[in-house]
């Protein structure tokens, strides 16, 4: 579904991604783990077009999307849940959700999707008229996820959904991620610091170090890999 071929991305003169190659097939949950500054977020930004790669190729459904503008990429069905949530603080929960459906015009379907989000996260239904900024961290993350889902993405890019959340909430969010994947067959690309949890929900994983993907395997294999265990799982 998504292929990255020799992608190189720079911030000015600093190279953040070095010949990154990846492949994601439809219906998978893929996780990308790695230390701080390894280039995980940059990979997402390169895919979503916010920081376009300098060289290399990104293919989505066998179609090159390198060099396309971010809004064009979203309209193809790739939606990002940005790191640190970035909900609209002064818009109500409902308006936030409607923003997610900005590119859609099918009103009846949007309404149905809204109801689906409220079934997925009942707490959001309770708070639907509250401004997004007044929600707690966990609720904001739920809102960010459901807002992204409102665009009916085929590929959902998630950047550190566990950031700054209590362990209990994190668990809940990961269960939802699994549910979204199985119920809607949405492909999910999950970037996480919390390698343990991420590998438990994912089918496959990539390990990133200094802008390079150094290891790729099925999630179960990675969980038992000695090197990964030592470096990222703290065992």
């Amino acid at each position: 579904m998504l292929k990255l071929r020799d992608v190189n991305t720079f911030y000015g003169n600093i190279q953040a991604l070095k010949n990154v190659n990846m492949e994601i097939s439809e219906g998978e949950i893929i996780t990308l783990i790695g230390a701080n500054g390894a280039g995980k977020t940059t990979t997402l930004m390169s895919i979503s077009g916010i920081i376009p790669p300098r060289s290399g190729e990104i293919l989505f459904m066998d179609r090159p999307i390198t060099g396309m503008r971010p809004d064009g990429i979203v309209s193809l069905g790739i939606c990002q849940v940005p790191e640190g949530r970035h909900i609209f603080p002064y818009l109500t929960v409902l308006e936030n959700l409607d923003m997610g459906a900005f590119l859609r015009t099918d009103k009846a379907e949007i309404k149905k999707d809204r109801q689906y989000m409220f079934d997925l996260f009942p707490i959001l239904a309770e708070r639907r008229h509250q401004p997004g900024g007044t929600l707690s961290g966990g609720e904001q993350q739920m809102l960010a996820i459901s807002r992204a889902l409102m665009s009916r993405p085929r590929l959902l890019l998630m950047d550190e959904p566990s950031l700054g959340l209590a362990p209990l909430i994190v668990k809940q969010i990961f269960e939802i991620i699994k549910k979204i994947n199985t119920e809607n067959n949405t492909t999910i690309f999950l970037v996480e610091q919390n390698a343990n949890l991420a590998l438990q929900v994912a089918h496959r994983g990539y390990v990133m170090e200094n802008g390079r993907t150094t290891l790729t395997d099925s999630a179960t294999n990675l969980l038992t890999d000695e090197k990964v265990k030592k470096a990222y799982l703290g065992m």
Partner: protein
Amino acid sequence: MIKLEELKKSFLVSVWFMFLTFPIMVIRVNPIEKVVEWRWKNILIVGAGSFFFSFLWRYLLLRRETGRKKMEAGEIEKIPLSRRILTEPKMYIPALVCIAVFASVFPFVFSIYQINIMVTAIIYVVLGLGLNIVVGLAGLLDLGYVAFYAVGAYSYGLLNYHFNLGFWAVLPIGALLGVVFGILLGFPVLRLRGDYLAIVTLGFGEIIRLILENWNEFSFGPSGIANIPRPSFFGHQFSLHAATVYIYFLMIALTLLTIFVVNRLQNSRIGRAWIALREDEVACQAMGIDKTKTKLTAFALGATWAGMIGVIFAAKTTFINPASFTFLESAMILSIVVMGGMGSIIGVIIGALVLILLPEYLRAFSDYRMLLFGAILVIMMVFRPQGLISNVRRTYKFEGR
């Protein structure tokens, strides 16, 4: 509710004030007769005055606190009168009728001086509404808005001078030139936000003014352009009084059009994109909103109104020069938007009327204008940071479980 402690604090403030102002308010040295006058009466006035204002201040703060506590405790929020007038048809329909009647008989009742003042005020209403698109809706702080106003005014002045084009022919051209310049400014500032954006727009406003001031062959420099014709009505030229009334109704019509357009924009797709852009740029991009297009339309649409109003301004005053388009004008329009309430149409209208009409009618206090202006701004920031009338966004009702 009024505690002794509050009284004591106010008393201390007044003593402190008396002490501070003692040297200038009480002692007066008369160097000719070589005597020192002691004006003890003044200090009593200072003391009483500062006690009164300090106590009033404390009382209002206290009231605001208790009001907030009540709201937090979940007691039913009392809807303020201003909000009720805006939302209840029983109240706003008579209010609208009153305003409409007043606006239509106004030029036949009052003198030409009054009409002129009112036209100026309405010009600022429309300018405020135009800037409101850029600042209030899209959240782009534009300190050079007056540049587009100048573009409109000079396009009428120059096109009339060189090609003898009439008011009605130039009005759309002025609007169009506003759009062109809006986009021209928009492109370089696409990547900027916040303070940086403000600085660049400020610079842009100054560039336009300096060009007009110094490029004598093009714009006749500081001496400006005189004898610009007033608008005609199908070729018919009016007398001075009739022309003023005509411009008055023209402005009323334009205001209604602006209100209609801005109102439609606010609840439209592009309006929602602007609001998203204002709130969070990263999220805005993640939602698939084209940042470039959204910013440019905001600048272009805001500039359209300024360009159009510029043409009318030139026709009204029949004389333009760069002195009418200084940074102070931009600051004035921005204050109208901020004071009225960002993003709120009625707020901006009231803000413009207050800020333009009050100084006209309070000419007696013109020495204290800047002092009052400062005081009002401070008081506003403490008691009504959201502006006189805050924006009531359309709320969506969700029928579901």
